[in-house]
């Protein structure tokens, strides 16, 4: 693929803070026009990566190109070509929705005439008109997030970086937010979004999973599920807690986790009857045992668990 098809391209991108490496030699390619979901536990380096890509942090090492502009060598055109919605709320509570948008349009050099038209468009697109002249402080959180998105997309940037845009938002507002993201992507924008919510991750075209500053997996949601290592079983057992502990003690079980009122148990080899026998001999009643296809959450938990175990093993071996 030619460089123009990648909207974000990093090579060995690294950021250190006082002896701790937040992002460690990250090499990442995000195709243009897609919604890229950036997953990972807190502190895995997602926000640090985004802040480097937006020009807010200088990389300690490596390079990154966003929309064709090297983030260190061409910061000015880079800024015009991206919209950023930070984890922290960035609107002015004492300004109305319209005034906030007018301010952000102004700082992106939009002229008053075109800006006014653009605000009307954004009002329609984000369904903001109803509270357009209300103080931002008085709005519910879901509305505020849409106003912040509006501020980030006013100047029609080809790339949007959204850092946990829906945290704390109710499901209905979240759905509306993602419908808007879908329509923006259809309109040709590239969206780089972090989230902890798995049904949001399902809606992404492409996912990247960060752990400890590394990209540990990348692919479409379907491909990631496909690549799930081992076989996943849904186990309905009683008593549940004892079943969980028993499963975790079994040497041939890769992972066991509580999932609602049942367990999700990962087996490297497809031998469910052995699992049933061992659980029952531990005094647990197995009511149901069936193979299921992994959800993204299973994939995510599994990926992180494998990493954690590897890290613990390395530490233990070192001693």
């Amino acid at each position, binding site marked *: 693929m030619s460089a123009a098809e990648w909207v974000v391209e990093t090579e060995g991108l690294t950021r250190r*803070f006082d002896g701790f490496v937040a992002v460690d030699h990250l090499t990442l390619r995000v195709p243009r026009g897609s919604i890229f979901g950036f997953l990972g536990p807190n502190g895995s380096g997602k926000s640090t990566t985004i*802040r480097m890509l*937006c*020009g*807010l*942090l*200088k990389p300690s090492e490596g390079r990154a190109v966003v929309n064709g502009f090297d983030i260190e060598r061409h910061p*000015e055109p880079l*800024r*015009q*070509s*991206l*919209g*950023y*919605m*930070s984890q*922290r*709320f*960035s*609107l*002015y509570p*004492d*300004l109305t929705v319209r*005034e906030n948008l*007018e*301010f*952000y*349009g*102004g*700082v*992106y*050099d*939009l*002229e008053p005439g*075109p800006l006014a038209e653009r605000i009307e468009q954004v009002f329609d697109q984000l369904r903001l008109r109803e509270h357009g002249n209300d103080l931002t402080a008085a709005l519910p959180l879901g509305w505020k997030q849409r106003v912040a998105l509006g*501020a*980030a997309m006013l*100047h*029609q*940037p080809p790339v949007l970086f959204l850092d946990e845009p829906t945290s704390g938002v109710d499901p209905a507002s979240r759905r509306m937010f993602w419908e808007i993201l879908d329509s923006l992507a259809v309109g040709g924008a590239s969206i780089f979004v972090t989230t902890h919510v798995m049904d949001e991750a399902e809606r992404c075209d492409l996912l990247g999973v960060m752990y400890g500053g590394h990209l540990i997996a990348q692919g479409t949601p379907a491909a990631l599920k496909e690549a799930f290592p081992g076989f996943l079983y849904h186990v309905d057992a009683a008593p549940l807690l004892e079943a969980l502990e028993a499963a975790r003690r079994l040497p041939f079980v890769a992972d066991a986790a509580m999932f609602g009122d049942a367990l999700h148990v990962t087996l490297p080899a497809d031998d469910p009857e052995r699992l049933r026998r061992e659980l029952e001999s531990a005094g647990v009643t197995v009511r149901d045992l069936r193979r299921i296809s992994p959800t993204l959450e299973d994939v995510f938990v599994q990926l992180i668990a494998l990493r954690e175990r590897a890290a613990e093993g390395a530490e233990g071996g070192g001693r």
Partner: protein
Amino acid sequence: MAERLHPLSGFLRRVRAIARKEAIHLLREPRTVLVSFAQPVMLLILYGYCITFDLHNIPFAVWDQDRSEAARQLVRPLSAGAQSHTFWLVGYIAHPREIEPLLATARARFVLVIPRGFGADVAAGRTATVQALFDAADSNTAGVSAGYLVGAIAAHNARLATYAVARRHGAHVGAPAPAPSLAGGDTKLQWEPIDLRWRVFYNPDLASRRFIIPGLIGMLLTILAATLTSTTIARERELGSLETILTSPVGAGDLVIGKMAPYVLVAAANVVMVLVVGGLMFGTWARGNLLTLASLSLLFLLGMLALGMLISARAPNQQQALLFAILATMLPTFFLTGFTFPRSNMPWILQAISWPLPATQYLIAIRGVFLKGIGWRILWPQGLWMAITTLVLLIMATRIMRVSLARGLE
């Protein structure tokens, strides 16, 4: 994407957006502006009515050991009821024991002691001696009282000399003339040849409040401007909006200029208010050209707003910003610029340090315009120096802002 026009038009659009947003903040939270107006009014009242550096009705007592006509002639012009209200005779005492309690309780600021033989000395043309004992717990009042008293005695000497000369020349011999007014004005003795005339320029009633009003404007602009802008960046940092702004094309220069703009209006309105309220309260109006006053004030004001921005760029939070802005402006303005203490009385090293302070030059300029009515033809060095310092402060504010924004994001 936005149409790319001349880079300057982008700069102006960004500055306008920032200025407009700041103005809305001010309008939505009018407390800041109202406090900024209340402060100078309070200072005006304090300085105008309470803290006057002039003295009236200085209470004093007399211990007249001589009890001669000459002694009474010395005291008469000092006592109340005479032309001047400078002194106020609280009474005569007859014993040295009474001196201390009078001074200790501040019923008298000084006691004038007229020794036995005073009248005889005067009559014989010998130098007569009087003694004055001061309560110098408040050295300023004591100093000023002593100065007034020396003046009054000099005036009396002049009268005696005139009387003696007149008598020697066989002219009409009468009682010595009434005392001249201490506060100035034409003092015509009833008979010549010595005609003492003195006149005070620019501040004819020697009122310190007349001198205070332009000083107050200087102090007000310094403190107000720097404190108004000092918290602005810390506020955006605390709110979280700074991060978003920094991913936009907004630069340090845009922020400095845009954020200063609305405060120019606030501070200018403050100056107008002090001029009007001060004028109405004390009847003291600027003598000079108002345009000269406005242009000099604007030059100075821009520098002080830039100073506030500079502090703002460095301060980690709003409290520290405000504290630092007050310390950095109030103390030097109060003590070094000549607002309270004349610079000519300072040791040369302090004079050298205080000269380049823009507030020092502004104080010279605004007093010149306000009291003497002089203009740019005389005050151009002050104007030039303020223009230079303002430019330097603006450049420094922008640079420090740039560095601090780049670092503040870490």
